[in-house]
């Protein structure tokens, strides 16, 4: 094994807990997915279309009338919530040490994530399909 510079890694691959190792890998897999999904999303809605054009009607009739873009949006929502949850979890575990406060903040993070998952899915699924 190459000796690593102490500067090199953000978070070394954990050893021991299988769950932490799985999270470490999932963070990287969802990160690569978001590299494509989120950067393409940002580019499409800022460089190809202008924010001023994207009214609720535009989203319903020009974007979510196509199943591809609905699927894209939902996949991105799932990926970003997963990556964001786990990232925020890492930050909370690093800085909040008082046990009850830590549990409370982690729970509020899970609740926020769950609410976003539900309302985000609802708005994508409930949008009317074209005739």
């Amino acid at each position: 094994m190459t000796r690593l510079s102490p500067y090199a890694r953000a978070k070394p691959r954990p050893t021991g807990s299988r769950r932490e190792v799985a999270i470490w890998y999932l963070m990287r897999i969802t990160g690569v997915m978001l590299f494509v999904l989120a950067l393409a999303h940002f580019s499409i809605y800022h460089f190809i279309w202008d924010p001023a054009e994207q009214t609720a009607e535009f989203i319903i009739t020009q974007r979510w009338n196509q199943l591809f873009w609905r699927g894209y949006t939902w996949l991105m929502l799932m990926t970003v919530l997963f990556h964001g949850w786990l990232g925020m979890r890492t930050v909370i575990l690093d800085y909040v040490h008082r046990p009850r406060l830590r549990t409370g903040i982690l729970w509020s993070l899970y609740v926020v994530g769950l609410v976003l998952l539900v309302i985000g899915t609802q708005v994508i699924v409930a949008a009317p399909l074209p005739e």
Partner: protein
Amino acid sequence: MSRVPTLLRYRGREGMLAWAFHRISGVGIFAFVVLHVIDIYLVGGDPELYDEVLEFYASLPGRLMEVVLGAALLYHALNGLRIIILDLWPAMTVYHRALWWGTWIIFIGVGVPGALIIMRPVWLPWLQAAGLA
């Protein structure tokens, strides 16, 4: 000494700065995602209110916010890729400083034109008035 922030006090050089920026941009992006899922929910829930929120996104302060958001997103994406390269291919650690500077070269090369496109309502009328566009 304890009043000096660790980031300035502890001389961790490139890797430490990369880590700090990654964390700050990540928390910022998460905050925007929370806002953005809620505003998109309005597309179905209250389309008129959504269109009002959109007016802010299309305004000058809104566009400045999008430039900052885009910068955070681009940095976080590029630095994340740098981390993955170093994780999967530890021998690349020898070139960790080159990777760090490469991140910034791509950041500027992609980010500056991107920021100009987002801010086009500011400079485009001026260019048109001068007969250049």
